[in-house]
């Protein structure tokens, strides 16, 4: 599902994707850059602890508050899925 189809602001979602991939590159210390289509668990091995650290970094960088209580980790397969969630479930912080 694209950002347009979900009614999200595409520019804000892209901002979230850019910030997210940059933070993940640093947190995971990977040789290859993280991309939007990568699977969080299977490819990146993202633990729930690192996932929360990622959310906190995004909140700080984008100056938002994310509704983490609504985040169902099992439904977030890829980096793009998570970016869509953040773009749709956050407010200025």
């Amino acid at each position, binding site marked *: 599902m694209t950002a347009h189809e979900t009614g999200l602001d595409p520019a804000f979602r892209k901002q979230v994707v850019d910030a997210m991939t940059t933070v993940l590159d640093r947190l995971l210390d990977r040789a290859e850059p993280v991309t939007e289509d990568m699977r969080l668990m299977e490819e990146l091995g993202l633990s*729930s*602890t690192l996932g*929360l*650290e990622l959310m*906190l970094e995004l909140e700080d960088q984008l100056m938002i508050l994310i509704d*983490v209580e*609504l985040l169902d980790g099992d439904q977030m397969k890829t980096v793009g899925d998570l970016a869509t969630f953040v773009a749709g479930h956050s407010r200025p912080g």
Partner: protein
Amino acid sequence: MTALEAVSVYLPPERIPVESLAGPLGLTEMQVKLFRRFHGLREVGRDPDPSLQRLLMKAAAGLDALRGQEHRVRYVLYARTMPVVAPYPANPLHEVCRALGLGHALAFTVTHQSCASGLLAIDMAGRLLAADAADGQDGQAGPLALVLSGEKAFTREAQLFADTTIFGEGASACLVSAFGDRDRMLAYASNVRGEFDSATGANDARLQREYRPSLAAVMRQALDEACVALDDIRVILPHNVNMVTWQRMCLLLKFPLDRVVLDNIPASGHVFCADVFANYKTACERGLLRPGDRYLAAAVGAGGGATFAAMVFEH
């Protein structure tokens, strides 16, 4: 049927902000922010009195139903997270028994299921009392067991479970009967997963992945055994591991978050095996439980293996 006759809880009024623990526990600024923002842990209780015996006594002192009934207490069970809390030959449990006039009772500690040991102790207490009655050893009316819990956060391991929770001091005392009609236990289910041994850390990532599904499974098992639907559960009394775990548990269970008693997490932290008892008292004080309401207590013990446990009660 196993029943809770009376519950008393002591949470020390002295609180320490999570930020103050960063230095002693070696927490990074990011870890402190995570605890505060997502785990919902703002401060934890620390009793300035270093005595574990006196900490337990403060909970027992509030157990009015014990006064004059000491002779009925046949067992004293001390449910504990940490395997060792005092140097030999000190035994805080026996000291508490003597101080309470319970020197005649058979007293022992239950610690093998870490923070899930509190629910195990209630089940054991009820079974012991029921077995005595079945064996015709019930020479006096209404024998009781006393289940104690509470610990001092006296080592780093007793203060912090990395990236997950911070322990707070406190204690509980609970009188259990075999055939009471108050807060009757309808079912108890537990699942011991020895492969999740935190000492080796070999399966930590898998434990993170399976934590919530495993807890949900044991909660559903207890509900099935009690023939109670989750929709009919008035409140869940959780272990106080952290907020985000229970927020996500509610998504998984499709259970309203406002019916999980999370009040004590921000100010008290994870009070070892006493969480469920503290949350029971809070539920009663807030008027969340009416006679006949069913409620579900849940706990996870992680240490030498992980134990997922759940208990269904009728108030």
